C-alpha cells in the first residue's frame, strides 16, 4: 500500500518521460545483479569509479551480455581506494560522464528487480546521480543477499540451542557456500559472485 503510493509519487516526479520504462513491469523474469567500485565508502561525498551489472536468467548468469561501465573523474581518485579496486586515474580517462553511464545502466536494468550485497550503498551511489537529474530514486524492487543468507543461516541455526553468530562478510559467505573467489574488488567479479550466491541461496534443495 505504502509502496504503491510511493511508486506513483515517484512516477509523478520523474522529470524525463524517456525513463518511464523504469516503472513498467518487465517482459522477462530476469534479475539484475550489480556492483560498484567507488572512491570511498561515504555515499554523500564519494564518487562512482566503475559499475558492472549482469542479468540472471533462470540458472544462468549472462556474463556474455554483461554491462561494464567506467566513470570519468573530475578529481583524482584517492590512493587508498586505488589500492582496493586497482583502477588508476589513467584507467578512467576513457570513462563516461556520470549521466551517460547511468543512462546506460538504467536502460540495462529497466524495471527488473536488483540483486546485490549491501545493495543500499550501491543504490545510494546511483541515486545521488539520478535524484538531481531525473527527480527520482531507483524504483526497482531489491533483493539483498546478505539478508537472505542471514535468514537461511538463522533458520538452520535456531534449531540448535546455540546462539547464532553469523559472519556476513562477503568472503565468509563465499567460503560457506563454496563459491570460487574469482577475485574480489572488481565490479564485474563481485557482481558475478553475488549472482552465484543468489542462485545458490534460491536453489530448491537447500531449504529442505
Amino acid at each position, binding site marked *: 500500500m505504502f509502496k504503491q503510493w510511493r511508486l506513483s509519487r515517484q512516477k509523478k516526479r520523474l522529470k524525463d518521460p524517456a525513463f518511464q520504462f523504469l516503472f513498467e513491469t518487465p517482459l522477462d523474469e530476469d534479475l539484475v545483479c550489480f556492483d560498484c567500485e567507488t572512491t570511498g565508502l561515504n555515499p554523500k561525498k564519494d564518487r562512482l569509479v566503475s559499475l558492472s551489472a549482469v542479468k540472471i536468467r533462470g540458472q544462468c548468469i549472462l556474463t556474455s551480455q554483461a554491462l561494464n561501465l567506467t566513470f570519468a573523474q573530475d578529481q583524482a581518485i584517492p590512493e587508498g581506494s586505488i589500492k582496493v579496486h586497482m583502477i588508476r586515474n589513467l584507467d578512467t580517462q576513457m570513462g563516461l560522464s556520470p549521466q551517460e553511464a547511468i543512462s546506460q545502466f538504467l536502460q540495462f536494468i529497466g524495471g527488473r528487480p536488483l540483486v546485490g550485497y549491501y545493495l543500499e550503498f550501491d543504490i545510494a551511489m546511483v541515486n545521488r546521480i539520478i535524484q538531481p537529474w531525473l527527480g527520482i530514486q531507483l524504483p526497482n524492487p531489491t533483493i539483498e543477499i546478505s539478508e537472505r543468507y542471514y535468514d537461511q543461516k538463522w533458520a538452520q541455526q535456531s534449531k540448535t540451542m546455540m546462539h547464532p553468530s553469523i559472519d556476513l562478510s562477503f568472503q565468509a559467505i563465499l567460503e560457506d557456500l563454496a563459491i570460487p573467489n574469482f577475485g574480489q574488488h572488481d565490479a564485474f567479479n563481485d557482481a*558475478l559472485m553475488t549472482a552465484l550466491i543468489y542462485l545458490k541461496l534460491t*536453489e530448491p534443495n537447500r531449504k529442505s
Partner: protein
Amino acid sequence: MSYQQALNFLHQVTPFSSLDDQSLLQIAQALDVVYFALGTQLEITQTESSKQNAYLYFVIKGHIAEYDADQRQRAVYGHNTFFGDAILLKKERFLRYEVLEEAILYRLPQAVFLAFIQQPEIEGYFVDDIVTKLNRLQAQVQAEASSDALMGGVTDAPWQTLVEVSSETTIRSCVEQMNAQQTDACVVHFETETPGIVTAIDLLNALALSAQDVESPVGVLANCPLITVHQFDYLFNALLKMTKYRLNRLVVRSDDGLVGILHQKDLMNVFANQSGLAVIKIEQAQTVSDLQAVVKEIDRLVIHLNNRGVKTHYIAKLVNELHRKLIQKVFELLAVEQPELHQGCLLVMGSEGRAEQVIRTDQDNAFIWPDSIPKPPGLGVFMDNFSQTLIALGFPPCPGNIMVSNSQWCLNLSDFKQQLRDWLNQPTPERLMKVSILFDAEAVVGEVSLLQALKQTLFNWVDANQHFLPHFAKPVLMFDAPVNFLGHWVKDKPSGQAKIDIKKTGIFPIVQGVRCLALKYGITKTNTHWRIKALMDKKVLDETFGFELGEVLNYMNTLRLEAMIVQLNCEKTPDNFIQVTQLSSLQQDLLKEGFKVVARFKQLIDHQFKVSSVL
C-alpha cells in the same frame, strides 16, 4: 578486465590453451556462467533455439556425470574440463548429464564453438582418435623443446655424392669416378644380386695387398648387402645402424632409389654431443674403468632425450643398444685370456632383452655353451667377476638372482633345455616368471644359434602342450586398472594419495599379454612393439587396435620414465609409482583412455586363452 577470469580459465583448458589470445578473448566474451544444483539433469541438443540447449559446458567447480542412451555412465567431468563437444559435433546422438556435485559452469554457444574449432591449433583435438591425440601431445612437447641434432632427419646431415658403377667397371675407372666426385666409396650394381659398396680402403687393399690389376672388375671387392637408411629417418637411427653393423658409411635411400652416402665422421660433426661420443668411447675403452664414464653419459642422454620429447620407445632402443655394446665390451675385456668363451652365447633377458629398459633397474643375463665343448675351466670365477663388474658399472644386481653368476643361468645347451622342460612341466609362479624372462632373451655375444635352439625347445613344447598357455596368461588379469567405475582414480590405500603403480596395472598386462600371444603364434621378436607389429602382420591383432596398444604402452612408459627421472634427481631409488595429481588434466585423461585400451586388451587375452577357466 572483466574477462580476465574467463581468459585465465581458458588458458588452463586443453586444447583451448593452444589458441592465440585474440581468439581466447573472443571465446571468453561469449561465455555465460551457469549454476546447477545437485541432481539437476540436462541434455545437450544439436540445434540452437530458445528451448534447446546447444552449448559447450566448461566445469569451473563441481562434478557432472555423462550417460548414454542406454543409461551407461560414460564419464565424469570435473574442474577445468568440458563436455558437450560430442553432441555439438554430431559424433553422438544422445547424451544425458546429471549433476553429481553442485556445479558452476561456463557455457559457450554452439555457433562460437564451431567457429573456433576450425582453427588448426585445436581442430585435431576434436576429430582425432587417441593415437593422433598422443602423437599431438608428443609433437607439442617436441615443439616446446628446442630442436636437437639427434632428432634431426638424415637430410640435415651433409652427404657425400653417390657414385654408382656396375660390377664390370674396372678399378681404374672406379677410382677416377670417385676422385671426380671427391668421395671415398661407391655403390656397385650387379646384374642379378642386390647392390654392394666398395670403399677407398677396399680398393687400396686390393691393389696393395692382394696385388689386383687396376683393370680388373670391382665386382668381387664389393661388400654386400648394402646397409641403407631412409633420407627422412632420424639421425640417431642412422647412428644406431652404424653401431649395430659396425659401419662407417650408410647409403641414403629415398622412396625412388639411392641418393647419397652418409659418412660417420659427418654424422658425428652434426651430433657433437654425448650420444655419438658414448658409442666411440665404448669402442675405444681399454679397461673396465674407461667404461664407467660412459655409463654416466648414457644416463644424462636419457634425460636429455626425454626432455626433447623423443618417444620412450626410441630412447629405449638407443639406450639398450648402448647398454648391449657396453656389456659386450665388458665381456670382451674380461675374456681376453679365455677365447673359448666366445663359442658360447651371452644372453640379456627380461626388459633388457626386450630393449625396454631405459633406467637401469636390474640385470638379467645368462650364458649357454655348446654341448660340443667341455665346461670351460674357471667359468664360475669368470662369471662371478663378470656380474660384479656390471654391478660396479651401475647395473643393479637382479633381486631374483637371475644372473650368469648363478649356476642355474650358466649351463650347456642340453642342460639348459632340460631345466626349461622341468620348469614347464612343473610350473610355479616363480618358474613361469623365469620362462617369461628367458623367452625375452637376446644374444649379445657369441653363437646366436644356441639361443635359437633353446627358444625352439620352448615353442615346440608349447605347441604340444596348449593347456599351458592359460596359466602363462593368468598374470595378465591379476591387477585391476586404478580407475573405478565412476572414472575416478582409485587412491592408494594406506597413504590416501592418488598414486598408481603404472607398471603393475598398465605396462605389465600389455607386456605379458603380448608375450603370451607371441609364444602362441611362434613370434621370435622380443621387443613388445615389434611383437605387436608381428601380431598385426599375422592378423592376430587388428591394425587399429595394434597401433592403439603400442601408443598406450609408449605413453605409459613415458610417464614411468618421467617419474623415475624425478626420483633419480631427488636421489631416491626409482620405483614404478606415479603421482596422478602431478599430471595435467590432459595427461590424466589420456591415461584413463589408456587404461580403457588395457581393459579391452585384457578381455582379448581372456578370450584367446580362456584364462577365466583357470583362475
